[in-house]
């Protein structure tokens, strides 16, 4: 697998288009200098609230798609749920509204050197970064299968895109409003079996990533999971976004998900211990005794 490096830039972007997609909002932004560098799995951090706002911190969003050509220069697209003051502000923006954008941030999904069979698992808007990934994988000759899950049909994002791109698409919803009633992990093993999966890429709620990682571990398949931790800075300087991750030597460290993630190997993350500092963590208080 290879990893791309990029250098984030801060640009005065502008809203190009806005659109409702089920329960979500889709926004395309003119943000030159970002699109060109973006690899699937990276994210942008947007300033919200406008001048005189009481909201100080940027909001992080997975990059759904980019286009680096066209009359506007580079554009970046995101998909988001309006769930608090920042995302609600963003949902109120109109074409031409200025939006300050920092990106691309974080480490992208690691790509296989050879063609493989890849299964992409998305939960809710978590599927957003998977479509650019699917395109890249396919252009390199890999097989792509999708498993998409959500609370309800309204919260399922990108099923049509997936059908266009993938060999197969399995869909689950908690309420059964579309696809199978249940969770992505109810069908994942079966999909992997059928597709002969070599690598799983996943993005969605932590509980989903944990479950996906377990399914993959059971089958000895690599999982690349994009996590979503609360972030104050998004650029690696504040240490708010950490989670316990095992390094190559098996040592657990509290690792910044904004710069060392958001994509982690599923088996490296200590999912059950997220939200704690395990006693055996490097530098943990318990270890000091």
């Amino acid at each position, binding site marked *: 697998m290879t990893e791309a490096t990029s250098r984030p830039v801060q640009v005065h972007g502008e809203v190009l288009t806005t659109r409702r997609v089920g329960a979500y909002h889709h926004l395309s932004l003119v943000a030159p200098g970002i699109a060109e560098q973006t690899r699937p799995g990276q994210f942008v951090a947007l300033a919200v609230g406008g001048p005189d706002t009481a909201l100080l911190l940027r909001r992080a969003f997975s990059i759904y798609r980019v286009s680096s050509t066209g009359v506007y220069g580079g554009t970046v697209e995101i998909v988001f749920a309006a769930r608090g003051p920042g995302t609600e502000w963003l949902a109120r923006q109109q074409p031409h509204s200025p939006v300050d954008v920092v990106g691309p941030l974080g480490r992208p999904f690691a790509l296989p050197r050879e063609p493989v069979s890849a299964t992409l698992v998305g939960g809710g808007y978590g599927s957003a970064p998977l479509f650019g990934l699917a395109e890249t994988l396919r252009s390199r000759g890999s097989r792509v299968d999708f498993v998409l899950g959500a609370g309800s049909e309204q919260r399922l994002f990108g099923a049509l895109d997936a059908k266009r791109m993938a060999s197969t698409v399995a869909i689950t919803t908690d309420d059964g409003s579309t696809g199978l009633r249940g969770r992505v992990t109810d069908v994942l093993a079966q999909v992997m079996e059928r597709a002969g999966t070599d690598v799983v890429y996943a993005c969605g709620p932590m509980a989903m990533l944990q479950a996906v990682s377990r399914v993959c571990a059971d089958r000895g398949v690599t999982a690349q999971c994009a996590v979503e931790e609360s972030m104050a800075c998004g650029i690696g*300087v504040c240490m708010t976004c950490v989670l316990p991750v095992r390094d190559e030597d098996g040592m657990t*460290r509290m690792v910044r998900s904004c710069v060392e993630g958001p994509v982690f190997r599923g088996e490296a993350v200590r999912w059950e211990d997220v939200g704690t500092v395990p006693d055996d963590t490097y530098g943990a208080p318990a270890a000091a005794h």
Partner: protein
Amino acid sequence: MGGPVARFSVRTVPAPERTAEPRYDLATRLASVELPNPVLTASGCAAAGRELQQFFDVAALGAVVTKSIMLEPRSGRATPRMAETPSGMLNSIGLQGPGIDAFLAHDLPWLHEHGARAVVSIAGGSVEEYAELAGRLRGAAGLAALEVNISCPNVANRGLVFACDAGAAAAVVSAVRARTAPGVPVFAKLSADVTDIVAIARACVDAGADGLSMINTLLGMALDLDTMRPVLAGVTGGLSGPAIKPVAVRCIWQVHAALPDVPIIGMGGVRSGLDALELMLAGACAVSVGTAVFGDPGAPVRVLRELREALSARGFGRAADAVGYAHRTDRTT
């Protein structure tokens, strides 16, 4: 328009030293050390400079104040570690860091190689630990000054924070001063969560502090209205950002009034050049930009640019002339 007449007359006072062609002498002194300009990063808000280098040249700042370093590697606290609040944020990082060995091996040399001046912030749980850190830093290349973060629980005294007790604060400062090279100034970083900040400031200066940094975060807390439990895993956290700027200005004002010769690094809610100027007028000879970096990674250089403009618009030929200017009563107001 409007406002009492008194405000009108004040506004028309000619600014000091207005010259036909303004020079911009931004240099400032942290006690024995001269910095090219008064804008610094704030400890814990810029790591050790490397990440910000992606956005601007950290050598362009007066100095980089590094995240408080401890003797041993530290995992920090559990998450969630932050909560956004109106015009502010709470953090409870718990001083996660690599420990002094890794810092000396990797971080300080990086800053030095990149031409940045480093103000190294140190933190400990005992007087000895602070002293030991100072000793380890002695002679390190690139070290411009020490900032002693005394807002740490004193293990020996039921976890009472050093900065909340004049005696404990003084003990740390004098131990650090004793172990630090004479040419390297030692700044004590004060907390505003005390009844009398001037008393703590005085104790630190009497114990040998060459200067003071203020203010650290205010102790605050937020509850999650879904879980109905504290948002932060650490329960309480430090409040920073523009919300606390009025408290920072007040503390700097009070301490500068009481100890006019003691250099102060000011911080607390600085987001613009005008904010930086406000802290300088209150008495700070340098200003750290903290939380603002999270919302705007380019904030420190922007603040520097805006400060330069603000100083020149007011006819200050030298940044140093603005320090404590709001206290001056020898003006024709």
